[in-house]
């Protein structure tokens, strides 16, 4: 390793109108090093990497690549100089082949003719470096799994002889096994001398993969160092600007009567078999792998997916679960006091181009509506939940992810539901917003609401829930007290290891 870092950024400034997005950020990555870039949403991470890639131009500061001044005017220039970005949303041409995608924009050519043989060699070499020489070059990208698509993107970066590789939330659409494989690849690339910037909300990932970390807050670098010498709590403290004693608050909750009873529930394909009892004043967590049928279970309970067999009984006005409501419409569920937060807030959870006030009150509009009343109600929730926005009339799409999620949750609070079905309520949002959401979940439970929460993030489930049930291949296991469970035990059940060991039929 030479003394000259692969990438050096000093004093980066960026303003958007009156807003200071970056205020003198310094960063450097050496060859063969993985730098974790962390910070809450809105701290300036994406602005910083966009300046690095050439998508934005900095207002001040300098960048060097291998000691050479680097000033990209547009993303293509950044790519040519060797800076490659792997974004959350994959940016592949789905209808082209693996080969065409890898050499896209950098096809070796004689005049107008593509030198396909050379292209194939380069693509094969890149695939070998990402550890998948077996991927057929002629296969259409649309037919690959998300994890394979991501590998093709990384291969594209390698084929373009990248010098700095930026991975922006690369694991958000991957399964646990694929994440492990990705980490293995990142380690290999590090050994091959690549410089890697790794952006993630998951601090456990950062501990597992990075050598150094840098924390951004409000557009400033507030701390960096060696990952091995840092603790997760310490990094969170830097990110939010205060120490997080209790990320998962837990007041005295006393589980009351059963408010939702599910018996032998069966959906179209998922869930295949689900029994559960949800009590007032408790938070019941549902763990499981992606595709296990957790989302479908919640959708059945909200009446969004058809129920084929089984009963869903609600006891909102009486102490005992009464009539079967399995086939009620979503509207009937809302009226009965059941509300759901969707896992996909941009596609399903929120109407992005409508204002906050409409989104917040949508489930509960009177026959004659009053925009002023909608606005007043929303303003109250905005204040209570500290939603950062310009006001109730602002379109939801202008908000950050964390604030969007608060609007989605506020809809349930405004409706004053008794049963909350939360599907991945903290996915892709910053630590500060997460802490707030945990706080409300605790408040709601201690006030007697019942919360059913699906999450793939096990520390969160263990921290927030009273009981946890694990779903595996469409079958919901029995709920057990969270304090008797560990991440390891949940994971074993989620992948079906306990059932196999017990010799039961899957």
């Amino acid at each position, binding site marked *: 390793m030479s003394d000259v870092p692969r990438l050096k950024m000093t004093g980066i400034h960026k303003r*958007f*109108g*009156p*807003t*200071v*997005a970056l205020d003198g950020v310094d960063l450097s990555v050496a060859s063969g090093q993985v730098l974790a870039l962390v910070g809450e949403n*809105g*701290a*300036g991470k994406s602005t910083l990497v966009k300046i690095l890639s050439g998508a934005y131009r900095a207002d001040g500061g300098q960048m060097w690549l291998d000691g050479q001044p680097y000033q990209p005017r547009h993303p293509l220039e950044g790519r040519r100089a060797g800076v490659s970005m792997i974004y959350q949303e994959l940016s592949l041409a789905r209808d082209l082949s693996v080969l065409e995608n890898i050499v896209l924009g950098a096809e070796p050519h004689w005049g107008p003719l593509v030198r396909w043989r050379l292209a194939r060699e380069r693509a094969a070499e890149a695939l070998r470096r990402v550890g998948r020489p077996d991927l057929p070059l002629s296969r259409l990208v649309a037919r690959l799994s998300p994890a394979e698509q991501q590998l093709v993107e990384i291969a594209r970066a390698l084929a373009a002889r990248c010098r700095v590789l930026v991975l922006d939330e690369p694991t958000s659409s991957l399964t646990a096994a694929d994440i492990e494989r990705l980490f293995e690849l990142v380690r290999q690339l590090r050994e091959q001398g690549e410089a890697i910037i790794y952006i993630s909300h998951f601090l456990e990932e950062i501990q597992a993969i990075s050598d150094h970390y840098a924390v951004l807050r*409000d*557009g400033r670098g507030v701390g960096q160092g060696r990952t091995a010498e840092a603790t997760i709590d310490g990094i969170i403290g830097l990110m939010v600007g205060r120490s997080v004693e209790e990320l998962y608050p837990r007041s005295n909750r006393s589980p009351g009567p059963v408010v939702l009873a599910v018996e032998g529930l069966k959906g179209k394909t998922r869930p295949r078999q689900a029994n559960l009892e949800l009590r007032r004043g408790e938070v019941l967590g549902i763990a499981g792998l992606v595709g296990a049928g957790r989302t479908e279970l919640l959708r059945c309970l*909200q009446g*969004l997916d058809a129920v084929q067999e089984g009963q869903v009984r609600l006891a909102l006005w009486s102490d005992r679960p009464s009539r079967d409501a399995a086939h009620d*419409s*979503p*509207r*009937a*569920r*809302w*009226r009965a006091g059941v509300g*759901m937060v*969707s896992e996909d807030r941009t*596609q*399903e*959870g*929120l*109407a*992005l*181009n*409508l204002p906050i006030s*409409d*989104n917040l009150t*949508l*489930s509960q*509009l*009177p*026959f*004659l*509506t*009053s*925009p002023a009343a909608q606005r007043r109600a929303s303003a109250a929730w905005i204040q209570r939940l500290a939603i*950062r*926005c*310009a*006001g109730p*009339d*602002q*379109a939801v799409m*202008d908000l*950050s992810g964390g604030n969007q999620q608060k609007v989605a949750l506020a*809809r349930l609070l405004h409706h004053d539901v008794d049963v909350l079905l939360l599907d991945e309520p903290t996915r892709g949002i910053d630590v500060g917003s997460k802490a707030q959401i945990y706080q409300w979940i605790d408040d709601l439970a201690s006030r007697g609401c019942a919360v059913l929460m699906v999450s793939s993030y096990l520390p969160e489930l263990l921290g927030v829930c009273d009981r946890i049930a694990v779903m595996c291949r469409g079958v919901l296991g029995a709920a057990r007290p969270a304090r008797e469970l560990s991440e390891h035990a949940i994971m074993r059940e989620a992948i079906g290891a306990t059932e196999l060991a017990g010799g039961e039929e899957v």
Partner: protein
Amino acid sequence: MKESGGSEAAVKVSVVRRLLTLFAPLIGLGFVFLLFSILAPRTFLAADNLLLMPRHAAVIAIAAMGMTLIIISGGIDLSVGSNIALSSVVVALLLAGQSPQFLHWLLPSFAPWPPWAAVLGGVACGFLCGLLNGALITGLRLSPFIVTLGTMGLLRGLAKGMADQQTVFPPPTGLNTLLQRLAPEEAWMLLPPGVWLMVLLVGATALLLRYTRLGRHVYAIGSNESTARLCGIPVAMNKGIIYGLGGMMAGIAGVLQFSFLTTGDPTTAPGYELHVIAAVVIGGASLAGGQGTALGSLIGTMIMVVVANGCIKVGLSNWHQEVITGVIIVLAVALDRLRRR
């Protein structure tokens, strides 16, 4: 700090956006109006001509109210021109006491209906056609474009079949005066009843969109249908109502079209669906759904009428008018894109 600053910028953006949404069509209308006032001050600004333009606008504007609901909800209705023709033929047949040609074997003629009943019949016909669209779209889960492309032909054919491919001539009634120049003794009305009807329906649509649950649901469905479903909005039922109301507006427009022509012509209102859609789009609605206003669509209609009228007054031929209208449509959509940035 960063986020609060970001939202300040966002406030400005959203204020500018709102102003553009509200005023861009109005500025456009002011511009074309001023242009023709300068080019042909004598003829264009004559009192008679100024009163003529709203009369010409009434049919399109009323149909555009229904289309506004449909487009905001993320749909489209290509059958509106055919629906207008069919409803006007139905009114004419009811007034004439003449049964549809293909039912002659059953009942050759009947006692002519009084005008008010014939109007109800025409409006009901439009409403049913709209319900048919809604039922096909939600029941068969087909795209509105395809369904209404089909009913566009279906309804036009039905109109021709009912009228035996001829114009129906009913005896003259009071209906014929709905859009006529006011007689001196009716001057107290200021505007013909048809124009008042247009004003009334624009107001009703604006109130419906802003102050009723149905109206807010229209925006929600057009903005994100999954969210609407998640929030317990009965999407299929709402769509049925929306297309039904759209058809009803087309039926009312058909009555006025009949009043304009004083005959039931099954080939009338050719290509009106495109005029109506253009009016709504010029008025600031987005074909992607979730955006649009009743007032905007009225202004959009007025822009098209002013251009058509002004071109004649300036002495330009029909092709000029078509070119100018085309340019305005593209400009309006380009502006829509800009606004969305």
